[in-house]
């Protein structure tokens, strides 16, 4: 993956979030998921977001990834302001500037591993042969060179997540977003997934990770703690603290509706 370092070497910040507000209308109630967040992700940085359920972690991720539009404030990814973009323009940003890694992998069930990795390039008009070459390359980088023609249901959870990581990288994105990437795999496999993500970051990619596991978050350079839609504190991770392995003390048992529904659906 070392050959990708120069591709992401842009000066300044990969992501700039300013006074970001997101409100939902749920029935007659207004839910304020984000209450004015400001945050910058420098090029090549590795940031983890932690916080209890309902703290706004996923909302932040969706806004930065261009899946959602903010109620107020701004989000810029790779210099492109997302909040004012039209739907097709946001789709283009999702395809070119951002790579997603999901807790539930979200691979296309009828496509092979290589086709899944190549899938984002379909929407960028890259020819099939070129797409597949690129996909095979990336699968080799995540040690899945022998699984290129397997369907997702023929792969283990860890393998699927590695396919998803390869897919996130295929478009040379400004930013890789990972939403609980270890949430659906066992600890050992989770460590493997996190090593791959670590290598992705080492290769120069900017990484934004959402997790509720302290030991996962500690692999990042810094941890942003969210609570009730606002940044509580930003913690720099020292190398000494990386091996503490404790779980996040902020995580309460009580979960709000949206979080419970999300979990229920997983």
């Amino acid at each position, binding site marked *: 993956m070392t050959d990708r370092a120069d591709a992401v070497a842009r000066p300044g910040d990969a992501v700039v979030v300013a006074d970001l507000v997101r409100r939902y209308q749920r029935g007659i109630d207004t839910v304020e998921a984000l209450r004015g967040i400001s945050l910058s992700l420098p090029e090549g940085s590795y940031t983890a977001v932690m916080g209890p359920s309902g703290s706004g972690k996923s909302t932040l991720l*969706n806004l930065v*990834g261009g*899946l*959602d539009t903010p109620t107020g404030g701004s989000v810029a990814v790779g210099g492109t302001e997302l909040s004012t973009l039209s*739907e*097709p323009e946001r*789709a*283009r940003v*999702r*395809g*070119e500037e951002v790579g*997603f890694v*999901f807790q*539930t992998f*979200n*691979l*296309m*069930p*009828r*496509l092979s591993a290589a086709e899944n990795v190549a*899938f*984002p390039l*379909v*929407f*960028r*008009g890259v*020819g*099939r042969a070129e797409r597949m070459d690129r996909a095979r390359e990336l699968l080799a980088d995540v040690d899945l060179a022998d699984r290129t023609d397997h369907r997702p249901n023929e792969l283990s959870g860890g393998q699927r997540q590695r396919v998803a990581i390869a*897919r996130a990288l295929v*478009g040379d994105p400004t930013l890789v977003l990972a939403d609980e990437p270890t949430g659906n795999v066992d600890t050992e496999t989770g460590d493997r997934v996190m090593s791959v993500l670590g290598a992705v970051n080492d290769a120069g990619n900017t990484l934004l990770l959402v997790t509720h596991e302290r030991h996962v978050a500690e692999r990042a350079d810094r941890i942003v703690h969210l609570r009730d839609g606002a940044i509580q504190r930003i913690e720099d991770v020292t190398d000494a603290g990386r091996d503490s392995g404790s779980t996040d003390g902020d995580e309460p048992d009580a979960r709000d509706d949206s979080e419970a*529904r*999300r979990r229920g*659906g*997983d």
Partner: protein
Amino acid sequence: MDAGETLRLGARAIRAHKLRSALTVLGILIGIAAVVTFVTFGASLQADVVGQIEETSASNVYLVASEDGDGFGGAGQPVFTEADLTTFRGIEGVRRVVPRGILAVTAISHRGDTVARTRATATTPDAFASTTFVAGDSFELGREEVVLNRRAATLFATNATVGDTVTLTLGGGRTRNLTVVGIIEGSAGQVPFDAFGSQPRVFVPTDPLYDTVVESPSTGANQRVYPQVTVVADPAQTTAVRERVERALPGTDAAALVPEGYQLVAQTSGDLADQVEEIVTRLTRFVTGIAVIALIVGAVGIANIMLVSVTERTREIGIMKAVGARNREVMGLFLTEAVLLGLLGAALGVPVGILGGWAAAAYAEIPLTLAPGWFAVAVVVGIVVGALAGLYPAWRAARVDPIEALRYE
């Protein structure tokens, strides 16, 4: 997103649910096949009937008094007198003038076997001028003779043959014993095409059997009067003869005798061919319209299955959007799938429809005539039906919220 990849993804989605896709395609297949069957049969019928008109009686001018001026098919009023026949015979280019009258007959007996019949045709030997006799020859005027067509000859327990005697029971219970002198095929040009000549037909000489008379306005004497006259023209000047006959009509007894609301009509076979063509076309359209209902049902099937598919694949739609698919690309993907289903149904429906048309033509004993233009139309219709049926489901797919979709299980 390129067309090849769109097609590949669509085809893959269709293959993923083979039975479901097959049943959906079947719906369109039945619709298209039904339309193609009726269109093919209609084309065959038209080609056969029109072909016969033009081939067997191209030089005939048919005269009738018709109620709506439409002419063909109407029984007509008896208005053409013997004096009129003489007038027509005098027109330049006329080869023969054949009157036809209707004789009410209640029964026909042959060797003790009696068959109920409603009418016989009273005419002259000229009626058989271009008719091939299976056996015997024409009757002669003034004799107690009869010509049967083959269907009529086989009506009885034992087939009537030349030389046999048949007994006609006329109105009022009077009976006439007539000698069978000839057997023909078809209808002897009574109708201008032989497809309808497969009915039993009985021909008798106007003299002495036809007794519908009227006082001729021109001569003042009682004369036989006929509802239909066929003027056989020189083939080189059929149209000219028709015009001459039309010019002569106002001065005839027929013009004086024609009742209020009726009109004298002179038509050539070409006119009749046009009319028949129109009737067959109208009939074909009507039946095809019914077949189109089957097609609509097929379209509903596509719409239904596409809606199910959109719901089932909500998560996939979310993934597509997350990796950069625009709404219109998602829409295009589902629309392509619907169009593929429609196209598949049409592509399979056309050969099945041709087969159906062939079977219908074989059943009706007419030669098969294909209408290739309609096959192309059918395929286009399949595509359009697929696209229309897929429009709403595809629009729903495009509108899926990616955040919700990615959580969807």
